[in-house]
């Protein structure tokens, strides 16, 4: 040991105390901002639903007349029935496909199971709008496969312009959610439970049906409620396939009543939105209850050892062919053909591909200032808005989990509440809020209103990416800084936030992708000059510009694919679950 004397006494701790005043303003400001952000779209919707004329008109009177009017609106009962049937059918398809995929790709010796599993996930990275167009290009009336089928057989057996057709598209795009929940449940589940059944003499399929599937039930149930909620909120598929066929669901009802109509009936729209909000709140509450049960169930599990895969035996290759066909038909074909269509002037099985390949669609797209602006706006909203939202989420997370702020529980609740706010409701709500607030006129026609609305929508998503990692950082690390004289804010800045860097990067990537593909809220809020890809896609779609739609969608697919690939390569994050 060296003979060095202890360094001289440092400055008294009172110096550090001088900073302690910073804590409260930062915490209150973050909490207030979150509260305003979450309440901004909700209060106007709820208020509009109980007054007798548009919010911006003078002489408003409180009334329940809107509810009566809505109940008496012709066809509203059918709208509710369609909504329920669509959501229920979608959920059924998604759960069956997701569970089968989880067992097949996750628990058996199926060839190329990992690759198939990865491809199976792709629909959740893309917006339902792009998927709809993809399905249209392949299976629509003049779709590639439809024409091929017509040439060989008579009529195709499918029709996307029906409730089952729409539910098939939605079910396929939501099946990854069920798949993810089942997969994470299967990895936690104790493999010895299955092994015990095999040792007791149960064969592969008996073990699967009697042990594995029942153990997956909590995951299936939870993701079913989740998918049902998402299906209720879905706008793109009913808009693209339901509206032309006269099948209206709640979201398209809100869209036509709230913005697209010639004379929007705000009372009716707000009332329907309030109704939807109530239903979704109930479902989200149910999710919370089920998740509580799931956790209780999962604690039965043992170590996360890799369970031994089931042997499929003679069924191995037939099942592989079936799974590959499914992936080809629902993932590869819709996305591939849509991208192909973007690089072709015309796409038909009768015309050789080499004759139609061209970049004309892209040239035409970028010749129009609206569309290049939409692409640019989307990039700015995602890159800048994603960063701002990540900063806000990081602040919320450290306050909720790493401070003794008095209102941290209410803040936590407020931050997670947007899960219960459907995109269409948030869109209508912000639309009203901006019309109502005098100071907000400035941002009305800019992309910043989109940034605000998207941030509100995706706080829970980002929070879900950040909070688990924060909870893994030992509280001793910030306590050590506090004891040494750092106030709360310095501790956050120098210790907690730097340690959370991987989680914040993951959060940013997830928000970038979510903002980039978001369209539901945007179609209520955009104005000339603040178009984004989602709104431009719908605009082009209505004009029947199939080639331009494909080109714009291809750009979205390309950017998101690059993002996912970069994120995986850079820090190996999982962008789901």
């Amino acid at each position, binding site marked *: 040991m060296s003979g060095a004397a202890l360094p001289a006494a*440092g400055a008294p701790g009172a*110096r550090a105390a001088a900073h302690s005043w910073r804590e409260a303003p930062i915490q209150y400001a973050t909490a207030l901002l979150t509260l305003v952000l979450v309440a901004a779209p909700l209060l106007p919707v709820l208020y509009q639903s109980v007054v007798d004329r548009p919010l911006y008109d003078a002489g408003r009177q409180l009334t329940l007349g809107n509810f009566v009017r809505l109940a008496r609106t012709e066809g509203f009962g059918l709208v509710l029935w369609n909504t329920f049937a669509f959501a229920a059918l979608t959920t059924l398809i998604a759960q069956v496909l997701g569970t089968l995929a989880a067992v097949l790709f996750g628990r058996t010796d199926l060839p190329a199971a990992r690759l198939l599993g990865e491809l199976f996930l792709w629909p959740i990275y893309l917006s339902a709008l792009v998927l709809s167009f993809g399905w249209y290009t392949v299976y629509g009336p003049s779709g590639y496969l439809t024409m091929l089928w017509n040439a060989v057989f008579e009529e195709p057996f499918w029709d996307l312009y029906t409730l089952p057709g729409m539910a098939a598209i939605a079910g396929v795009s939501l099946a990854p959610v069920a798949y993810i929940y089942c997969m994470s449940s299967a990895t936690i589940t104790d493999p010895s439970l299955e092994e015990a059944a095999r040792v007791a003499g149960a064969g592969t399929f008996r073990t699967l049906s009697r042990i594995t599937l029942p153990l997956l039930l909590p995951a299936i149930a939870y993701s079913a409620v989740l998918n049902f909620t998402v299906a209720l909120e879905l706008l793109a598929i009913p808009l693209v396939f339901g509206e032309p066929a006269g099948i209206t669901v709640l979201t398209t009802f809100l869209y036509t009543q709230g913005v697209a109509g010639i004379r929007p009936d705000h009372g009716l729209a707000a009332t329907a939105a309030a109704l939807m909000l109530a239903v979704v709140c109930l479902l989200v509450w149910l999710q919370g209850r089920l998740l509580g049960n799931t956790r209780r169930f999962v604690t039965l599990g043992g170590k996360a050892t890799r369970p031994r895969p089931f042997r499929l035996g003679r069924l191995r290759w037939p099942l592989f062919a079936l799974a590959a066909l499914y992936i080809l038909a629902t993932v590869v074909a819709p996305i591939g053909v849509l991208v192909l269509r973007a690089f072709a002037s015309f796409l038909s099985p009768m015309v050789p591909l080499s004759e139609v390949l061209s970049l004309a669609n892209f040239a035409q797209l970028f010749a129009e200032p609206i569309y290049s602006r939409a692409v640019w706006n989307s990039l700015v909203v995602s890159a800048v808005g994603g960063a701002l939202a990540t900063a806000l989420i990081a602040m919320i997370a450290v306050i909720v989990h790493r401070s003794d702020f008095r209102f941290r529980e209410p803040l936590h609740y407020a931050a997670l509440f947007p899960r219960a706010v459907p995109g269409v409701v948030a869109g209508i709500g912000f639309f009203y809020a901006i019309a109502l607030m005098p100071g907000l006129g400035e941002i009305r026609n800019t992309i910043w209103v989109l940034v605000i609305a998207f941030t509100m929508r995706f706080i829970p998503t980002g929070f879900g990416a950040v909070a688990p990692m924060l909870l893994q950082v030992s509280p001793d*690390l910030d306590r050590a800084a506090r004891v040494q004289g750092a106030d709360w804010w310095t501790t956050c800045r120098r210790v907690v936030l730097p340690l959370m860097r991987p989680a914040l990067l993951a959060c940013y990537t997830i928000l970038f992708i979510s903002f980039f593909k978001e369209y539901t809220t945007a179609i209520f809020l955009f104005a000339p000059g603040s178009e984004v890809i989602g709104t431009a896609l719908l605009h082009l779609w209505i004009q029947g510009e199939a080639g331009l739609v494909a080109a714009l969608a291809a750009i979205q697919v390309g950017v998101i694919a690059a993002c996912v690939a970069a994120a995986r390569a850079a820090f190996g994050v999982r962008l789901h679950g």
Partner: protein
Amino acid sequence: MAELVIENLTKRFGEVLAVDSVSLHVAEGEFVTLLGPSGCGKSTTLAAIAGLDRPDGGRIRIGGTVCFDDRSGTFLPPEARNCGLVFQSYALWPHMTVFDNVVFPLTLRKVPAAERRRRVEEVLALVEMEAYADRYPHQLSGGQQQRVALARTLVYRPAILLLDEPLSNLDAKLRDRARAWLAELRTRLGLTTIYVTHDQIEALSLSDRIVVMNRGRVAQVGPPQEVYERPADPFVADFIGTTNFLPGRVVETADARALVALGDGQRVAVRTARPPAPGARVTLAYRPEQIRIAEAGEMPAGAGSVVAARVASRAYVGGRWQLGLDLGGSPLRLETAAPPAGDRLRLWLPADGAILFQGSTDVSLV
């Protein structure tokens, strides 16, 4: 350096009283150990001193600074107390090098850059880690991490030093070395230190005074030797050192001596300052090293008693045997070099050194 005064400190977690009106006065430069089983309130007390937990009642003063007072509502945040705390987990920041970890408290105190460097080098030399300044914590062994954690605390010369089980994450051999090193450092620095541990050897070898805690209360305060030799109650006797308890009843007393009848009627003489009245229920406590197998023909004398016991179990533990005995229905543990031949043997119990507690004690509770 400063004194620490704690008065009637109380902390509740829901219904549970984690710390129950604990009072303690630690003099300047004193090394005091809080010793007790897990859940006894020692770590909660430490967290209250550091300001990491807000207590429910009482007062804490460090030097001239009142850190907590429930009457005036004073509660200083941890950063205003100038304490040094070494965590059980060391809590080194994984994203900073050793140098950055140690310089952090000096940066906070706005020490000029040149002096910062000098002081970090000095303190790293003190803990013999000067060669590792550019390493990251995960590149260090447990013992090295512990030294860096200590350096990070010493570098700003805190008013008092708080150590929360700093040796418990080291393996047994390293722990012995680290303990010797810590003892040497402590003599040299002379910092007011509160040391929390559940390890009696650490407590006995390092402390000026030991505070034994049990269920949120202070069971005994005193220098190590006093706590070991004159435990205030059966809990302390059992927690510090292994102790054999023999319940019995006083049958006869004479000046500073008592004759106690055990459960099976055998009689044992003990020396005690204030013998209880005949008929009183008592518990005798013996350290294993006080008891030995009686030599052949040895008879009870003034210095001790001889009793018969039954051998219930025996185990060879390397170089010696550990015997489990049954004496009048009470279990007794004893170590001996040679095992007895049969399952009966005679024990010699000294009259001096045995501790007599009033009342019968349910030993299984402690």
